[in-house]
């Protein structure tokens, strides 16, 4: 279902440390996952995606890991910088019947704060 709730999980790290943001997804049939970064007052920005036939994908300073057995997704940010401070959402592309075939469903989001 849709994400609800007023309190975001938070993660606070020191500049230069590595960050790991976790996400549990709901549908074992979901076959595509995206991580978005959303800074205050802005729209979500695409970071990295992964298909279900992979378990790891790397980008620039970011790595996404997918564990389909336990329906878990994680985003690793290397050498975290103050500019990485934002809310991070995972999203799964869930198949559904009727209308369009797929719907992108967002997780609750995690607020990452990077301390200088």
């Amino acid at each position, binding site marked *: 279902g*849709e*994400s609800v709730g007023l309190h975001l999980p938070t993660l606070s790290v020191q500049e230069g440390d590595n960050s790991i943001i976790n996400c549990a997804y709901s549908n074992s049939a979901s076959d595509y996952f*995206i991580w978005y970064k959303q800074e205050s007052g802005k*729209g979500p920005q*695409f970071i990295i*995606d992964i298909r279900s036939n992979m378990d790891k994908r790397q980008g620039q300073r970011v790595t996404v890991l997918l564990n389909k057995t336990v329906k878990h997704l994680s985003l690793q940010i290397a050498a975290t910088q103050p500019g990485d401070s934002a809310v991070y*959402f995972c999203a799964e*592309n869930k198949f559904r019947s009727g209308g369009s075939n797929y719907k992108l469903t967002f997780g609750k989001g995690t607020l990452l704060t990077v301390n200088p």
Partner: protein
Amino acid sequence: DAMVIQNPRYQVTQFGKPVTLSCSQTLNHNVMYWYQQKSSQAPKLLFHYYDKDFNNEADTPDNFQSRRPNTSFCFLDIRSPGLGDAAMYLCATSRVPFGLASTDTQYFGPGTRLTVL
């Protein structure tokens, strides 16, 4: 090189006064989406267009309507805004051809922050 553009960025309206939010895209994508996002929450899909085909979400109130006059533009109309409609409204696009392609990224605009007085 903005790809998804939303205007205005901030909109103030009065309770019950109709308001229209605008979205345009330079990606020539087939699909355009409107999301509502309230503070500290995830974006919630309101509806989307596959080309000219409108797809409403089951739980989207009738107060919310949309128009897509051409590929590039999509509008969100709120007929009688209530205080509970104050939120960030996000437009997104994706390339997905009708019916298939589960692996297609959605690209978001910067959003319009709506305030209802």
